[in-house]
């Protein structure tokens, strides 16, 4: 793709920094990138918003159990908590604004409505709605509202162009690119902040943080995460690559040669978080924002290639021509229905109808069963034994729970075993790696080598301080050991907590057998 010169402020061109910065922020372009972001951001959210619709009264309103973010910070009653009916009405309006924003109908008004209501609803539910992608989207909505993203690829733009009699006499309007630049800089700052967080978390680099996170199922199920969690060395390498990319992003993405590689790495990174951590909306939100880097020249380049393709495959023209004819037939250019005043009225009437329908739907839903024919819900008793178990005094930590795993191998790198094995040869030096779970007290760990009949051959021990994640024990497979089954046994506080069986193969004398 070609690159607009305005995208590279750090060139050695003979211009002052003031001129370069001015050009960087105020170059005029058709806002294609922001238009794509305007369409994709609400789509990314749509699933989550629709999923919450039946629970609006419960999670946002004073009828239920809202969880304002401000409470977590000790700022109580910072924002008003509305009644169920008001929340339902506002939520319905937000969903409508989401749709009109995506299609670009009364675009700026839709973005302001959607952005404001989404900000309110997300901040009112810190338990199950607000996340960092909500915050990122709130920034995007602010910047989209300040941009002219509705000037292209929108119903508003189509209505405006219908008034121009000669279609060849109209060009797409250009605007200063600063809203797109702020989205780009914002992304750079987010990645830089994420890198700082990782720098604050030393175990990120050992792979332990990722390993434990991939094993949890608190987000959507991610089978690849379970699998990768077994290879912490790989996670450690990925961790280093991630932080290098996050720091480099804001500095490199402006260079035309590096822009696509930086964005491609970012896309791969975010797609991997879906498969390994079960994050679904976050990657879509972040990748949608990458379109803010798309320039007018990029779109022209793509359009030229698409036209070439259309000439080869005329079938590709059909949907566009059919859609155009249908739109013109439904709303002819001379029709009064396309006027701004009529469009505004249509927006208001639709909003009113959607709000009323939403309130009626929620009333019929009767979430709390207040109008059920059989009466209100009756609280059912729980099993007394189960309740008493839950309320019992603190139990001591089991020894086996202090251990994550015991693994055997002969190669280690980055404090992790490279090769987990169950078979060794004479001359091998077995590394027994005990991975330990914090929090725990300082431990004395015994590591025993026993033969197939559970007879002790040798025993080593070491102190495992509480901050240590792994203890390593070494066993030489000397020629004196008979080939056969053996086990490494791990004990803490005198209790066996893990056992790994392995097979020793080879010639006990160490000589090569002649045939």
């Amino acid at each position: 793709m070609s690159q607009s010169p305005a995208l590279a402020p750090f060139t050695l061109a003979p211009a002052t920094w003031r001129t370069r910065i001015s050009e960087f922020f105020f170059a005029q372009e058709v806002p294609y990138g922001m238009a794509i972001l305007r369409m994709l951001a609400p789509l990314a959210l749509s699933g989550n918003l629709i999923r919450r619709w039946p629970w609006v009264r419960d999670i946002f309103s004073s009828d239920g159990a809202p969880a304002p973010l401000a409470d977590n910070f000790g700022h109580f009653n910072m924002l008003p908590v509305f009644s169920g009916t008001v929340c339902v009405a506002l939520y319905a309006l937000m969903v409508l604004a989401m749709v009109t924003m995506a299609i670009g109908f009364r675009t700026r008004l839709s973005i302001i409505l959607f952005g404001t209501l989404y900000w309110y609803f997300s901040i009112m539910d810190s338990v199950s709605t607000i996340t960092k992608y909500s915050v990122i989207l709130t920034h995007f909505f602010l910047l989209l509202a300040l941009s002219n993203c509705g000037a292209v690829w929108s119903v508003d733009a189509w209505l405006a162009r219908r008034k121009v009699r000669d279609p060849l006499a109209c060009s797409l309007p250009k605007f200063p690119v600063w809203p797109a630049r702020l989205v780009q800089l914002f992304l750079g700052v987010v990645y830089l902040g994420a890198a700082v967080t990782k720098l604050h978390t030393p175990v990120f680099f050992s792979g332990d943080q990722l390993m434990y996170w991939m094993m949890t199922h608190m987000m959507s199920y991610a089978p690849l995460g379970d699998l990768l969690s077994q290879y912490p060395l790989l996670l450690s390498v990925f961790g280093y690559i991630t932080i290098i990319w996050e720091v480099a992003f804001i500095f490199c993405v402006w260079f035309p040669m590096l822009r696509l590689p930086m964005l491609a790495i970012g896309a791969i990174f975010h797609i991997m978080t879906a498969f390994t951590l079960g994050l679904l909306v976050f990657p879509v939100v972040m990748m949608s924002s990458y379109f803010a880097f798309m320039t007018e020249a990029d779109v022209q380049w793509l359009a030229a290639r698409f036209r070439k393709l259309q000439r080869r495959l005329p079938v590709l023209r059909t949907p566009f021509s059919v859609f155009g004819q249908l739109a013109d037939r439904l709303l002819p250019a001379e029709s009064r229905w396309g006027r701004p005043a009529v469009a505004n009225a249509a927006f208001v009437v639709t909003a009113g109808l959607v709000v009323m329908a939403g309130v009626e739907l929620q009333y019929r839903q009767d979430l709390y069963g207040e109008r059920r024919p059989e009466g209100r819900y009756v609280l059912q008793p729980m099993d007394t034994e189960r309740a008493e178990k839950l309320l019992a005094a603190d139990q001591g930590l089991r020894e086996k729970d202090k251990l994550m795993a015991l693994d055997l191998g002969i190669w280690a790198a980055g404090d992790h075993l490279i090769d987990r094995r169950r078979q060794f040869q004479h001359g091998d030096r077995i590394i027994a790696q005990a991975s330990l779970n914090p929090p725990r007290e300082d431990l004395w760990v015994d590591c025993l080598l026993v033969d197939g009949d559970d007879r002790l051959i040798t025993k080593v021990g070491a102190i495992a301080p509480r901050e240590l994640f792994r203890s390593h024990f070494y066993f030489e497979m000397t020629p004196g050991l008979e080939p056969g089954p053996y086990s490494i046994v791990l004990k803490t506080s005198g209790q066996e907590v893990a056992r790994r069986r392995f097979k020793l193969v080879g010639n006990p004398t160490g000589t090569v057998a002649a045939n």
Partner: protein
Amino acid sequence: MSASEFVAERPPVQTDAVATPSGWLSTFSRTSPTGQANRNRLAGAFIVLYLGILGFGLMSHTLGFLNTAHPAMYYIVWDMFCGWSPYNNKHHIIAQGESGTYYDLAPAPWGSLRPWGAWDRQHYDPWNNHMVRMGTTTLRYTEHEPISKIWVVEEIWATKYDLPDAIWNRRYDEAKDPYSYYRVRSESTGDGQLIASYISWAQYQQMVALGDNPRLYAESQRNRPMFMVEGQRLGQDVFVQSVTGSSSGMGRPQVANPLGN
């Protein structure tokens, strides 16, 4: 003719958005040079302000300065990926009636939102700031005997037991033996007034581990203050615990991570 030349030859669309306004709005009209210059000045001021706020957030996060001072900081601090734990946890809200009968208040009889996966909503409140409210909501809309007490209980188990069987069997010789620990996080009256609040299981285990050092434990007992003066702030109906924990982030609960789904 290239696409850019073609575009350049065409006059701009005359839409209502760019129509010349009258009155004070003409100061910022896009169609006049003065108006455009004023718009650029205004945009410049916004750019400086916005980048300044982002820069402050980054600095605040990096240095740990005012990063939790106000809810607004949540919007400029990028602390994704901060929490983790080798133990997974869920939460239970239990009520006891005057007859001594126990009731499970969450999920409610009408169900619960499962916001990010297969877990109900209450499991994503690791700081126990809102769970009592969820419990009292269940009580508000159900028929029941008078309630004397509400507990919030944390359930914890080693994350390794969440591994699928196929992966477990390949790595471990032992059979899976999952075991849940329970810890009461708070006690409230039947109408949700807080009586007592307790630290999380992870924080408690850290204290147990520290107490395992006899010298340190004896010294802490000798120098223990007579009154507790810090550590918790009383809110209107909930306690908000001050942020504590190791620099590694291990002490922080791993659920309701700000990254979300």
